[in-house]
């Protein structure tokens, strides 16, 4: 009972700080959006603006008012869901983001699931076999994984699996023929799930095949980092007194490693998972470009090329909010794993 109260209080406190962090984030995006550029209004409506347009937008954004007032105007718009209008597509930025998010989300989730699964398993195994060839292999692979640029790795995989071996599709989310033979009914926008819901197995296979290379490319860095972290914490944990106690009391080695030690190791690993998500989000930009994946990343890069300023600021805010929420989620999950956290 007491426990739960503490936990609830902690979560509440954590939620509150997140709200403050989000508020602070908007201050920074506000600065980048309105204060850093020499003429924010011109950036906001794009290069074809006529003087009267700039004047109109200056009024609309309140750019002629003092900074605090401008910020309030900005916040009001953000909260109203008015994140500006994309210069190149003329559609509301939030709508643009929403329409592309499922594709990115699908890629991100798949990559992170791969990364977390392989990272933890490989990390644990590596720690268990410390100093053996398997451990050495894992350590070498993981340092390669954190050093290789995603955009380059993607190209190499394309060359290998498409050009040389020709066993995986080159790019895209689905084969274009599929739309006429076995169209995917879009329910969630996440094709893997949609294909399963509607039992469209042909499409599922195609979606999976298209997913492999981008997901692997994106997973390389987080997987390596998680593996390194898991290995390090597993070694660290196993040198702890309580693990020695468990051994001294004759518990089974498998129980000690996979239940006791792993639970202790998972908490720092979770933090790293939260961190790598930030990487994966920006990493997906490169991966989406290389694999022509129609998600947020393509939108971002196109917006960068077109200097679609409202879109870029929208994406920045969106990414930052997503990242804060993920970290919040990680912290909350950690309270279930580590009862001590709610006390700190």
């Amino acid at each position, binding site marked *: 009972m007491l426990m739960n109260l503490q936990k609830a209080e902690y979560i509440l406190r954590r939620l509150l700080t997140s709200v403050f962090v989000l508020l602070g984030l908007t201050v920074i995006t506000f600065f980048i959006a309105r204060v850093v550029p020499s003429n924010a209004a011109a950036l906001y409506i794009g290069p074809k603006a006529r003087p009267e347009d700039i004047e109109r937008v200056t009024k609309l954004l309140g750019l002629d008012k003092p900074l605090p007032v401008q910020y309030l105007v900005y916040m009001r718009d953000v909260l109203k869901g008015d994140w500006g209008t994309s210069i190149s597509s003329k559609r509301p930025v939030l709508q643009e983001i929403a329409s592309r998010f499922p594709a990115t989300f699908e890629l991100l989730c798949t990559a992170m699931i791969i990364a977390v699964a392989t990272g933890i398993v490989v990390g644990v195994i590596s720690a268990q076999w410390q100093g053996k060839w398997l451990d050495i292999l894992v350590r070498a692979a993981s340092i390669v994984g954190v050093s290789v640029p995603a955009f380059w790795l993607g190209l190499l995989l394309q060359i290998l699996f498409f050009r040389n071996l020709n066993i995986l599709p080159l790019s895209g989310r689905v084969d274009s023929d599929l739309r006429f033979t076995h169209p995917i009914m879009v329910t969630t926008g996440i094709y893997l799930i949609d294909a399963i819901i509607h039992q469209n197995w042909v499409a599922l296979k195609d979606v999976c095949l298209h997913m492999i290379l981008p997901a692997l490319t994106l997973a390389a860095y987080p997987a390596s980092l998680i593996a390194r972290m898991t290995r390090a914490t597993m070694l660290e944990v196993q040198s*702890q*007194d*309580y*693990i*020695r*106690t*468990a*051994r*001294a*009391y*004759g*518990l*089974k080695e498998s*129980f000690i490693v996979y239940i*006791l030690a792993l*639970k*202790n190791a998972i*908490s720092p690993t979770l933090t790293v998972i939260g961190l790598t998500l930030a990487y994966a989000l920006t990493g997906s930009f490169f991966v989406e470009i290389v694999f022509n994946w129609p998600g947020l990343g393509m939108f971002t890069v196109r917006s960068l090329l077109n200097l679609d300023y409202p879109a870029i600021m929208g994406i920045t805010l969106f990414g930052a909010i997503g990242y804060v929420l993920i970290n919040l989620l990680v912290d909350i999950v950690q309270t279930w*794993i*580590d*009862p*001590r956290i709610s*006390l700190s």
Partner: protein
Amino acid sequence: MRDPILRIEDLHIEFRTSRGVIHALQGVTFDVMPGEIFGVVGETGCGKTITGLSVLRLLPRSARITQGNIRFEGVDLLKISQREMRSIRGGKISIIFQDPSTSMNPLFTIGFQMNKVIREHLKFSREKARERALTMLAATGLPDVERIYDSYPHQLSGGMLQRAMIALALSCEHSLLIADEPTTALDVTIQSQILQLMRELQQKLGVAMILITHNLGVVANMCDRLVVLYAGRVVEIGESRSIFENPQHPYTRGLMSAIPAPGSRGNRLSAIPGNVPIDPGALKGCVFAPRCAFVMPRCLKESPVMFHLSKDHASTCFLAERGDLF
């Protein structure tokens, strides 16, 4: 005479480090009799903890037993399989570590950890194991055992945790309990309570106990017999009373003159100038010679062997050989 429950013979242990090999134990030999409390005394780094861990074969990866054997109830612990060893750990021999706050896994409840051990060794059902754990917790004088059973380690004080640790250590009808500095990390006021409790339970359950400590004061109150280790070697061994009344080694004497007030946390034996050598194996002659107030030219050349003063008292000092130390 009864057979000893534990017999350690000529135990040598080495550590391999990046700075070379360190000889942690060099020919340690002693017996522990059933039902007695046996003290292992020495400064930090003298090898007493290593001795305790070696009995359970829990030495760190870098350590290696190069010589000697450890017999528990007639079985050579160094020769049996992992599986057999596992049933002895926690089943026959249990151990209490120095710092109760780190020796319990912080992410699991006290109950979970006790329950698991009891089920492992006594093959109890979950329910029965829980009852047993509660009984043992109550036996250590803890109040509100149901709540403690469901608590996480961080929710208990150090003293309560150590009581829980003791409950765990005695929960599986063990015949030998190794207590490695069980009170050092506790508050002064708690220390004597815990020692008292251990002594009571030890007598009640009739287990043998090895009490590892740097604190001669603790040993004096508790132990039937004791061994004094210095730099990985036995310097004096025998009945506590005999040793306390008539210490036969300058080191023991130094230790005794440095007995802190009961319950104090002092670690350093300031009465003896100098430090324990890092790798005593490299020294020629008596390992204590560099710090010894009675050092003789002979001490620097040859190593003294064990000299028996009586059936129950021996020392490794040339002075003891001559019998004219004190």
